[in-house]
């Protein structure tokens, strides 16, 4: 059952990820990106991280993707990108694909040489199942991970201030 779900999700994810990077129109890219994010949430559920799956949908699909969409709409950026600019070396694009595939091959060859043991099934016991639950994660965040949690707050503060400083209209 899980195997089938994995394969279906994997196929959809690969397809939509490829669509994200190949669509001419940014809006369709964004929509495929949302689809990819949903698929990722599915994998997280399969891996017993239900809370993160929910966060994935809220943060990525809900906030980040919408932010992208918002910018595209606001700036009316739907022009297709130019094929060749005079500044670019002509083989830029094919080279990009080649190198991208090269990165994939290197990663895969690393993974191929590691054994790849089976991962425990989700119904293997309460303990395992509980790990990804909100209360467990919450407890971890507020005890062992209290420092990073607080830092994340400062980081978001920095991001807010930075974004405002850059994007706001001139004050004076």
């Amino acid at each position: 059952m899980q195997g089938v779900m994995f394969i279906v999700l994997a196929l959809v994810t690969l397809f939509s990820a490829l669509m994200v990077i190949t669509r001419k129109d940014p809006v369709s890219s964004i929509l495929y990106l949302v689809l990819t994010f949903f698929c990722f949430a599915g994998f997280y559920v399969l891996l017993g991280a239900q809370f993160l799956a929910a966060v994935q949908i809220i943060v990525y699909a809900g906030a980040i993707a919408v932010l992208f969409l918002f910018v595209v709409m606001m700036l009316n950026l739907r022009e297709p990108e130019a094929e060749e600019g005079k500044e670019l070396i002509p083989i830029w694009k094919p080279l990009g694909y080649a190198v991208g595939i090269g990165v994939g091959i290197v990663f895969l060859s690393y993974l191929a040489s590691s054994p790849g043991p089976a991962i425990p099934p989700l119904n293997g016991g309460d303990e395992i199942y509980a790990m990804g639950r909100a209360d467990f994660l919450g407890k971890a965040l507020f005890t062992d991970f209290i420092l990073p949690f607080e830092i994340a707050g400062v980081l978001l503060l920095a991001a807010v201030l930075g974004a405002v400083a850059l994007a706001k209209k001139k004050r004076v």
Partner: protein
Amino acid sequence: MELTLNHYLILSAIIFAIGVTGVLTRRNVLIILMSVELMLNSANMTLIAFSHYLQNIDGMVFVFFTMTVAAAEVGIGLAIVVTMFRNKGTIDVGNFNLLKG
């Protein structure tokens, strides 16, 4: 079919490579940013897969922070894009080569 760790790792590696390819081949800043999001997501999946396999919560917590960082980066990135667009009227990275050499 029994799922192994490698299924997840290989899938995430492939998606990571797709993200890299997107960054390398596209000239629209927004799509480059989206490709970066793909990379980060696949890294997240790797973390969760390991976390599940190791039965260790650290990986999942890490993902939580990666998401925070990703959101913050997108915020800043889009702010830069907006400023850029206001100045130059384009978001094609091929047009930004004032600084070179």
